[in-house]
């Protein structure tokens, strides 16, 4: 009896020592990611909230500003409402259109055999895959008669003089939207291609026995509901991409653009922060941006629950 007890306590001590060791090992494995995640994601988001309540230029000590930075966006800054409007136009068009296209294209190519499907997936994914290929649009929409778009329109007799596409406030938004859509078949598209393949064939079989008559019914009652979680992932990726449009704009149209016609929150942030050193104000704008993205994330999460109802 006594020896038994001794063995048990020894065992217990051993397992608890082993558990401790395992805990430390797990923490060790977690640390490299979490340390940098905290430094480069959590701290930036939280510090933005704090910093937005101060005026800070990186040299002098921060001065309490209350909510004045937030008020300034809408009352004391003529540019901000314009860049906010531009950002929302771009997000509300390229977000949903890109999201729907990335599903519809994936759905269309799912009909083909594996080789053709892989090839087509590559074709649609190629613009997003090849990071900086969007420069080709600068040549196609070049402002002189040598630009492909200009010469085409002039040959057709639609215009007499070349249009300086990226410097013309009537056209540059449209072109940026086109380029952004061209780039938008990214991670979400690949997830959709994979996700559609993964819907169980049994479901389709059961569906056709249950009286599904055409592909639209099949899409609505079987494919979409079984892909809800992948669609949510795609939606999150699409929100991320469509609210952070900026580098493409700067590369193609420059900064600032004519009358700020295609400046976005992201390009404006670079101006306010890293050029004018108004970090309190930049932080307030960032917080608004984070909040808008989180808001759309919640809305879409709820919308996706409507499928198959």
């Amino acid at each position: 009896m006594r020896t038994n007890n001794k063995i048990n306590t020894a065992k217990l001590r051993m397992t608890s020592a082993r558990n401790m060791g395992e805990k430390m090992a797990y923490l060790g494995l977690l640390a490299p990611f979490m340390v940098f995640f905290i430094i480069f994601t959590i701290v930036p988001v939280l510090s933005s909230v704090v910093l937005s309540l101060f005026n800070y230029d990186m040299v002098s000590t921060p001065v309490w500003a209350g909510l004045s930075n937030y008020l300034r966006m809408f009352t004391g800054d003529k540019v901000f409402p314009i860049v906010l409007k531009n950002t929302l136009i771009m997000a509300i068009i390229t977000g949903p259109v890109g999201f729907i296209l990335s599903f519809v294209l994936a759905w269309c190519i799912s009909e083909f055999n594996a080789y053709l499907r892989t090839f087509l997936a590559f074709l649609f994914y190629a613009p997003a895959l090849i990071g900086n290929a969007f420069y080709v649009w600068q040549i196609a929409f070049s402002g002189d008669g040598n630009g492909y778009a200009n010469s085409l329109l002039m040959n057709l007799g639609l215009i007499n003089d070349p249009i300086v596409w990226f410097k013309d406030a009537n056209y540059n938004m449209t072109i940026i939207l086109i380029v952004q859509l061209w780039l938008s078949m990214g991670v979400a598209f690949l997830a959709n291609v994979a996700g559609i393949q993964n819907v169980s064939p049994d479901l389709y079989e059961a569906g056709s026995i249950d009286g599904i008559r055409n592909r639209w019914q099949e899409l609505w009652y079987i494919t979409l509901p079984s892909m809800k979680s992948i669609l949510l992932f795609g939606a999150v990726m699409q929100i991320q991409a469509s609210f952070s449009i900026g580098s493409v704009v700067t590369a193609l149209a420059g900064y600032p653009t004519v009358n700020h016609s295609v400046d976005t929150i992201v390009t404006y942030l670079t101006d306010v922060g890293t050029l004018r050193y108004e970090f309190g104000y930049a932080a307030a704008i960032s917080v608004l941006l984070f909040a808008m993205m989180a808001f759309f994330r919640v809305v879409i999460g709820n919308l996706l629950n409507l499928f198959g109802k």
Partner: protein
Amino acid sequence: MKEPKMKKQHLKVSKTAQYKRYTRSKAGNFFFFLFLTLMGLFSVLPLIYCIMTSFKPLEELLIYPPKFFVQRPTILNYTALPSLLASLRVPLSRYVFNSVFVAFAGTILHIFAASAAAFVFSKSTLKFKNLMFAIVQLALLYNAYTLAIPQYLIFSKTNIIDTYWVYILPAIPSAMGCFLMKQYVDSSVPDAFLEAARIDGAGVFRIFFQIVMPLVKPAWLTLFLFSFRDMWSIIPGGTIFSEELKTLPQVMSSLTAGGIVRSGSAMAATVIMMIPPILVFWFTQSNVMETMSSSGIKE
């Protein structure tokens, strides 16, 4: 320890093609075909135009009206690149080295950090792991562009502006990589398997490196693709000033600013830049597809 071959359920892809569902209309097929063709052209024509332009001699670049196809192809645009892209102090090879170094260093560190964390999120007994993973999942919304300003402050407070670190360090904790890896570990590494190894006396590190990592190869190849793609085209905003530290995409923009005369070379540089990501994609694509099928966000 022997690793049993695992049959994963989602490997049995699409038997749908094998049985007829009797739900296809002719009109629908026609619409599908038309739509795919139009979208395919929209996707590919700019890239073909890019390749065409890269082979055009100067007189064809300046010709009016411009032609889509190249008439007399030349490789002059390519051979002119080294002298066009080099600055006074920095030869082209330095930019190439920077791009390759940054892309590989950032990607490999990201893969290790994200896989280790994903393994812990998926299989450990740690408290708070679900809370932490929920935060990582929330962070999928935000990327380097939206976080640029507060990250800039951190770069400057830690004195790493104008060093390689501003490229590499922020790439390590990419939420998407960790998320994809965690979902894949969940779906393809059975608990019983790890428990058996644990009973045999394998420690956590050994389980991670010798059992989990080989099993999740498709997922880390996927992380490789996405991270490499991002790092290869990275253009840091206002954090790199030294010519010696700039990467290829940054010097390429000087070509595209050179107008129509330089457009041939600009496109030649673009064509060369597209080759590595395309190669990576073709080598990894079947693994990527397998990984992405478990990428859903469950709520």
